[in-house]
Each structure stands twice: as C-alpha cells, then as structure tokens.
C-alpha cells in the first residue's frame, strides 16, 4: 500500500554567517493514513526541522515529500501545526482564537462556523468561548490550541513537544485528552517528543533518529491496545518492554 505521507531522501542544511549546519541527511519516513507516528531523537538532532519541512515552512535542500501521491503544496491548510506553547493570542477570545485559521484562509462558510461550534461543544469549551486565554488553565489552553488547528480539517497534524510546557500533574490528563481527540477525529498525526514514555503510550509507530545530521535509525511498531487511553496503555507489561527497547535504540548512539 502506498503511504499517505512520504518523505524520501530529505536533506536539509542550515546556512548562517557562522557556517553551514547539516541538520537532516537522507531522511525517509512513511506515514499511513490515520496513523499516529512519534519521532524521538537526541536533542538538537533535527526533529523540529522535519516538522517545519512537512509544514511547508522550510524548503528541503534535496529530497521529495508527497501527500496522497502528490507533491506537497506549501502554504495550505492541509497541515496543522501545534507547538510546545499554546501560542493563543491574548487579545482574542477563545472563540476568536479558534477561528484564526478560518480568518486567514478567508473562510466564512457556514459549514466551517458549524465545525467551530461543534468542536467547542464536543470538547467542553462552549462555556469559555467568550473568555480570554489567561482565564483558562494550561491544559485547557492546549486543548484550545489543538482545536484551533482541527477547525481547518488538516490532513496531517504536527505536534512539536506539545506537552513540554505542562506540569507533571496536568500532563497525563492532557495526553489522554489530546490522544482521545486525535483518535476521535481520525487525523494522521506526527508527534515530536523528548519523552519516550509519551511516544510509546501515544503512538502507533515510533521513528528513532540519530544524532545530527539526523537519519532514521530505526522504526518501532507499537503493538499496544489502541482502544484504551494512553494512561491505561502504560499499565500493559508490553509497554515497559517497548520503552526499554526504544531506550536502548537511543542509547546505542
């Protein structure tokens, strides 16, 4: 079967006055439709760079990316991006924040408006629609940030350490929450994380990267029960095995 998103031989060099940094070297990644892929790797190896390329913010030095068999178009709403910090705009209400992407693509269709209302309702934010971001908790803000990207019905959702800024207490609930929303909406997702725990409990497939310049070291399939929440998956003894395996893969660097 042809993969939904395919990165073939992606190389990327950064150029600055200090010199040239080779960040990615022949990166090959396949992502199937509705698959949840986690990318782990040593810090500074080029994880964010991969996401920037998929999002069309960076152009690769060489290599090709295809989505559904066609070369990936830049500047589209096909790719949703979620950052470590929620980046909600403090001067906009929750509703206005969620509608940001629609405003950008000048989408005033009633269907899109309806999607906003539906998502706000479905994920318990209707009551907060007219409040400002500072009135919400960190976990809730992250949920708003997720919905802000989902409103655009992206084909791929990119998550760059989206839980990194949350404290330990809220973290697990937000992970369950986000995982639930993503499975619910059946969105193909790519998660970048430092936290192997997070990767193993959320993903269908884990891509382990090498030190910079990053190449794919290994791809680990996660055979845990995906019908239960990530926090429940952690109780499976297979979880610990996978965790140790990915650890070793990273360590053998």
């Amino acid at each position, binding site marked *: 079967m042809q993969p939904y998103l395919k990165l073939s031989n992606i190389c990327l060099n950064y150029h600055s006055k200090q010199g040239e940094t080779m960040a990615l070297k022949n990166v090959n990644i396949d992502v199937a439709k509705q698959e949840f892929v986690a990318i782990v790797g040593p810090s500074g190896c080029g994880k964010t760079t991969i996401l*920037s390329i998929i*999002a*069309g*913010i960076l152009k690769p030095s060489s290599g090709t990316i295809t989505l559904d068999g066609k070369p990936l178009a830049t*500047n*589209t*709403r096909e*790719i*949703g*991006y979620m*950052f470590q*910090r929620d*980046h909600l*705009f*403090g*001067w906009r209400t929750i509703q206005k924040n969620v509608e*940001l*992407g629609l*405003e*950008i*693509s000048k989408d005033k269709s009633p269907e899109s408006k309806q999607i906003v209302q539906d998502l706000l309702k479905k994920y318990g934010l209707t009551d907060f629609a007219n409040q*400002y971001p*500072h009135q919400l908790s960190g976990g809730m803000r992250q949920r708003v940030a997720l919905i802000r990207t989902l409103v*655009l019905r992206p084909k791929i959702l*990119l998550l760059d350490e989206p839980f990194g800024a949350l404290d330990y207490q809220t973290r697990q609930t937000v992970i369950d929450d986000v995982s639930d929303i993503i499975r619910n909406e059946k969105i193909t997702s790519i998660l970048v994380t430092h936290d192997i725990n997070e990767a193993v409990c959320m993903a269908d497939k884990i891509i382990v990267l090498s030190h910079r310049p990053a190449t794919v070291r290994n791809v680990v399939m996660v055979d845990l029960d995906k019908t239960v929440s990530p926090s429940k998956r952690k109780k499976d003894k297979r979880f610990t095995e996978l965790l140790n395996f990915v650890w070793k893969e990273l360590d053998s660097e």
Partner: protein
Amino acid sequence: MNKKLMYSEEHLKYLRKEKKDKVFVLVCQIAILVVFIALWELLGYFGVINTFIMSSPSRIINTIAELYASGDLWYHTAITLYETVLGFAIATILGTLIAILLWWSEKLRRILDPYIVVLNSLPKIALGPIVIIWVGAGIQSIVTICFLILIVVTIISMLNAFRECDKDKILLMKSMGANTLQILWKLVLPSSIPQFISVLKINVGLSWVGTIMGEYLVSSAGLGYLIVYGSQVFQLDLVMASTLILCVLASVMYLLVALLEKRVLKSRH
C-alpha cells in the same frame, strides 16, 4: 453579597492599613503644594523675596486673569496646543508607518540602519536654523522641529516592538497559510499595542519639548513665545503664568494617554 463579610479580621486590618497609607500619601502631597504656595506668597508679601524677580502666586493668578480678559490666553494656548498635537500626531503616525515598512522589508531595514542610528544620536534641535530657512519661520517650522524630535524615537521603538514579536507565533500563522499582511494585521500590530502606548506616553512629553524649543527659536505667538517675551521685558509674572499653563496642559495630555492605556490594557486582560 457584601465582600467585607467574607474577609478575615486580619485581612480587614490589612485593608484598613492600606487605605490609611493611601490617605496619608495624598494628604502629604496636597500639604506640600499648599505649604509651597503659601510660603511663596507670604515671603513675597513680607518682602523677604523680591516679587519682581520671583513673582508670586497671587501675581501669577492676576496675570492669567488679565490674559484671559484680553483673549490672549486662548490665543496663545491654542497655538501651542495646535502645534504640539499636530507634531505629535504626524510623527507618531508616520513613524509607525515607517516602522511597519522597515519590519516588512528586512533588506530596507539593513540598508537604512546606519542612517537611523546617526539621526537618533543627532540633537534634533541643532537642525532648528536649517528648518526655519527651509520651511519658513512660523507655525510650520515649529511643527517640523517637534516632528523631527519625535520621529526617530518612534521609528526605533515601534520597529523594536514589531521585531520582538514571538517567532513561533509567526510560524504558527505561516503554517496556517497566512501572508505577510495577515501576519502584520492579526499578530504583529495587536501584540505591539502595549509598546505603542508607551511610545505615545514618551511622545506626549517630547512633543511639548519640541514645540517649546521651536517657539524659543522662532515664533510670534504661543506659550513658548510668551515665556521668551516675558523674560526679555523682565515680566516674570508672565513667564511663570505661561509655565504654569504649560504644566497643566502637558499633564492633561499625559493623563489622556494614561487613561487610554488603562482602557486598552483592561480590554486585553
């Protein structure tokens, strides 16, 4: 529901102390003013100080009353106010527009950077004589001087504010397919509003400096003119009266901006 009922005795005590302190500070502030004015008046009245040189509160009030009666008060105040507001508005608007342009084009910013640095370090008042020759003596040259004093600081402060805008937020907008205009309009400008207000505050103060300096250099009307004229004919009453009016005007304009700030910041959070 009465809030007081919910507070503990300790908190009420704290609130009472806060209130007492606030009243104390206000009383002291008023007392200083009253004592200062009374002392000035009395020392003059008993001939300890020479009111011809030092003037006195009652003579200042009389002078203002005379100016009012002759219609000069409105005439000169209006001219100075007009020059200040005009210089302030033109410089603030144009400066912000130029800052937007420089934010938009990184190349242009780099090209113009040394010129902006030089213009910033130049004491603008040194350009006064040139301005007078080029645009002609009169209101237009005073507005120009005021404008020159404000424009460079406005450009630099606003450009800094724009450039400080969170890079990840810009990436977020880009990942949603936003173009530069949308990034400017929906992100960079709204996130720079607090800095814009502090620029307004600085400009209010500077615009009075600019106008009065301009009027010292060249003018036939305005409060700055009255001050210069008063000192030349040794009418210290007139000098003091004009200075007092200036004080009041500048404070009112500053208060207006402070009020705007309060409203804007409240609506943000």
